[in-house]
């Protein structure tokens, strides 16, 4: 309560006419709000396997390795990050399909997590800050030499979706 208000109340009490009484009553009004969850995924860049080897497996480490695609997740509450429409093959010339295993990892500021297959991964990230928290999500994967040996030369591509859900 402001000093002005305090003295006004005190004065009000003091100014009660002689013979009258002053009565106090108090009540409370609750104030409520719910701050909505907020989350975003930003960043650009592809998972880049480059020119594929037919004699050695082709691996991109999702934990910030060369060729990994990195995205920044920003959130104001606890979130789960999952991946949908994760391709098992990349599409190439004339409908050719190149088998791929896409792996994902995250770094919430404490270091990279272990990589896991994106198709089944769920990253539970907690926001312990009094503000926005961020984490880096990395996507990489593996294309085996055997898989490369069985497909035509050309450019192959695919895509997955990163899903961030408030808990």
């Amino acid at each position, binding site marked *: 309560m402001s000093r002005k208000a305090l003295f*006004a109340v005190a004065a009000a009490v003091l100014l009660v006419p002689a013979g009258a*009484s002053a009565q106090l009553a108090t009540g409370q009004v609750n104030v409520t*709000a719910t701050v909505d969850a907020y989350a975003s995924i930003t960043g650009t860049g592809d998972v880049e396997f480059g020119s594929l080897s037919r004699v050695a497996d082709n691996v991109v480490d999702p934990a910030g390795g060369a060729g990994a695609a990195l995205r920044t997740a920003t959130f*104001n509450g606890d979130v789960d990050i999952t991946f949908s429409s994760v391709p098992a093959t990349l599409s190439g010339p004339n409908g050719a399909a190149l088998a791929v295993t896409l792996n994902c990892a995250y770094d919430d500021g404490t270091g990279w997590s272990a990589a896991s297959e994106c198709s089944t991964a769920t990253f539970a990230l907690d926001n312990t800050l009094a503000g926005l928290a961020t984490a880096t999500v990395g996507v990489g994967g593996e294309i085996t030499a055997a898989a490369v040996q069985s497909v035509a030369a050309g450019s192959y591509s695919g895509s997955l979706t990163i899903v961030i859900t408030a808990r």
Partner: protein
Amino acid sequence: MRGWLLATLLGAFGAALLEPGDVAGQTPFLLVPTQPLDFGRLAPGVPARVASTDVVRRGEVRLQGEGTTSVVFTLPDHLAGPGGARVPLVFAADDGLWQIRNRQVRFDPAQPFTIRLNPNADEARIFLGGTALPAPGQPAGRYTATVTVMTVQTGT
């Protein structure tokens, strides 16, 4: 210190002035909270105002009794939320509104004001609006605060 001083003042005067014999002939005032001030869902970074004319979201307390009374609000400066997070609150000079029957009067909730209830007035409805200022990175969750309303009867 101010709170202690106020408590002391009120305690002293309350004890002195609320002797059973003193209240004879007067209808005691009563404050009845009837509706919270509800900002609803807030988007981080987006200020939200509830007007004192917003019948759904404004706070309301009903003042019942008879006579003249001074009304004082103790206004919080923030809503408290998860993990100690805070959403600042601002109360503007026109965020208060009281109504007796069809008569409405705006007031500044940061300042004391006086209401007179006639014997046939039934009650005064006191409304409170305000503005919440969530930060862009405001943590998600439920936030609460409490407004205290105090009346001191000053006349019959």
